[in-house]
């Protein structure tokens, strides 16, 4: 009975989207209610699954009752459920900001968002590579529509690049999948994990090539340097609520890399394959952090600043996957949760402070000029007093900046500490990553201070009218991060158990292939 729960997170948004399309323009209230219902339902499913897998069981749903190697399976373990929960929470938190805003005619935002949720949940639950491709395409197709929602010339051009790059990545995905299928004869992840140690030496290179090409496809999604140049521009051009939802989309790439690298190329994969690709992830992740920080310091648009924050976050995660010890992975998962929520909140804040929709020009930040000292030139003590709603935004900005930079006392610090502590003394690469993440935190502080001073203290920033819906969303997201600060113990234990489970894939394989 429990196993049927697994189909819920995929079927519910699918049904909701189909009904919303049928309801169309005339019954917009009903369509919105359906969207809310679906998001609440997703949260319910995620919590029910959390209760079911909390003790370490791996739930398997065999579609049509076919045994795993022939049929399609959905698998939920602690990691999948963690991602489901994160997605559901994010979707629910973004609702207040979205519902009020998208009432214009021709808006297909709600069904598209539901399709996106379906693709995300499917990617987290699927147990074989080809369905992973299908769910990836579902979520990407929905994301194309969302990124281009209410188009303008700039948004269309950024969307064009986004679509072209993702189509190319999908083709690489297919090449990788078919190479792996050619070598092993199966696409079921558990069966692959069993077969990898037995692959003969003469075709092992092909298997590695397939895995590497597949990895490139996911690294494009996770925006590793040098595959991530598309991200800041595309995310900055998307509507803020959509960009906030996209914050979890890079994490899909991270999730798949984490899952596959530990399942297929973990310690049990034999001497020739164990740890395959780990070094690439480690150094690539470190380079991504470095690039993200440089981009953050140079960014002149708030949206791009948020985009570079996404890069720093996924770079740290990729590097941590490359190191791959249980303690590091547990810390990385904590960082994943907090950074996703904080980046989503920051995208919304960027949309509130520098909206793109109605403005001709996006308000730009001043270029960075270390010699000019423009910020401190006139010691004018009489700063303009900010109106109360703007003060609220300033408070939100401060909290988001603290979370993103990983400064105490908030959960950003706890997560970053959980990630950094086990990195110390785990080898040269880990030390480099450690240093870069710490320096990256400093860079984030500098960039955020610059931006905060310019917007809130200089008194020249033109504040657009405040939208209560989006402010509510920001408050929910940041509130969740604050809650995680206070209640860090239980989630952290769950994440440690998740990392331990990932490092012992035998139970996963046994559950799928009894």
């Amino acid at each position, binding site marked *: 009975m429990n196993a049927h729960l697994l189909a819920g997170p995929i079927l519910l948004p699918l049904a909701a989207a189909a009904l919303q399309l049928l309801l169309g323009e005339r019954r917009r209230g009903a369509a919105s209610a359906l969207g809310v219902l679906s998001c609440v339902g997703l949260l319910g499913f995620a919590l029910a699954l959390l209760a079911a897998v909390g003790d370490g069981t791996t739930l398997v749903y065999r579609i049509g009752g076919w045994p795993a190697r022939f049929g399609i399976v959905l698998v939920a373990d602690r990691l999948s459920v963690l991602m489901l929960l994160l997605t559901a929470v994010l979707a629910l938190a973004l609702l207040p900001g979205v519902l009020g805003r998208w009432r214009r005619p021709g808006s297909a935002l709600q069904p598209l968002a539901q399709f996106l949720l379906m693709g995300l949940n499917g990617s987290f639950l699927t147990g074989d590579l080809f369905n992973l*491709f299908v769910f990836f395409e579902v979520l990407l197709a929905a994301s194309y529509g969302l990124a*281009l929602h209410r188009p303008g010339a700039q948004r*269309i051009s950024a969307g064009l690049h986004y679509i*072209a790059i993702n189509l190319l990545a999908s083709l690489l995905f297919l090449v990788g999948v078919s190479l792996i299928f050619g070598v092993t004869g199966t696409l079921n992840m558990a069966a692959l994990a069993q077969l990898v140690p037995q692959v003969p030496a003469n075709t092992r290179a092909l298997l590695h090539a397939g895995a590497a090409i597949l990895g490139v496809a996911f690294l494009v999604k996770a925006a590793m340097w040098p595959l991530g140049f598309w991200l800041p521009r595309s995310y900055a051009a998307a509507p803020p609520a959509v960009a906030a939802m996209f914050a979890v989309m890079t994490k899909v790439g991270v999730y798949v890399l984490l899952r596959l690298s530990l399942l297929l190329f973990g310690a049990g994969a034999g001497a020739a394959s164990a740890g395959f690709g780990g070094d690439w992830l480690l150094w690539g992740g470190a380079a991504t952090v470095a690039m993200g920080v440089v981009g953050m310091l140079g960014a002149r648009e708030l949206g791009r600043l948020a985009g570079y924050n996404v890069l720093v976050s996924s770079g740290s995660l990729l590097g941590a996957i490359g190191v791959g010890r249980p303690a590091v992975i547990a810390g990385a998962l904590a960082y994943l949760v907090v950074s996703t929520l904080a980046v989503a909140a920051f995208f919304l804040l960027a949309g509130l402070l520098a909206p793109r929709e109605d403005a001709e020009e996006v308000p730009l930040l001043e270029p960075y000029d270390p010699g000019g000292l423009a910020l401190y030139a006139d010691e004018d003590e009489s700063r303009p007093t900010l109106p109360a709603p703007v003060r609220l935004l300033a408070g939100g900005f401060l909290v988001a900046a603290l979370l993103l930079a990983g400064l105490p006392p908030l959960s950003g610090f706890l997560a970053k500490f959980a990630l950094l502590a086990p990195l110390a003394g785990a080898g040269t690469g880990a030390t480099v990553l450690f240093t870069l993440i710490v320096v990256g935190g400093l860079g984030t502080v500098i960039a955020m201070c610059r931006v905060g001073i310019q917007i809130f203290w200089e008194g020249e920033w033109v504040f657009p009218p405040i939208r209560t819906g989006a402010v509510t969303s920001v408050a929910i997201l940041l509130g969740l991060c604050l809650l995680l600060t206070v209640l860090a113990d239980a989630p952290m234990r769950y994440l440690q158990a998740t990392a331990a489970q990932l490092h012992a894939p035998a139970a996963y394989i046994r559950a799928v292939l009894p």
Partner: protein
Amino acid sequence: MELVLALAIGVLGGGGVWLLLRPRTFQVIMGLSLLSHAVNLFIFCVGGLRRGADPVLRAGAALADYADPLPQALVLTAIVIGFATTALFLVVLLASRGLTGSDHVDGKDGAP
């Protein structure tokens, strides 16, 4: 047959990559289409190239004589998804042309 197929995949893939790197949106979409043809052929041939193999539906043939049905299923799915995404890309391309008045991928001609 292997040689012909390998050459076809190579030519389609090479042409696709070259077109993908061109500055005009129409060339980009043609490049993506060629590349997806190359990938589809590639998926099709990972199941092994054989002539005269039985389809999986025919009863009575020996198990070893069946053509592998899974790559065929994969390639069908890939074709459908590729078709849909190409159509979507085409719409975006037309919108870009309409909004910017240029068919350059950046929305404006970079030439001085």
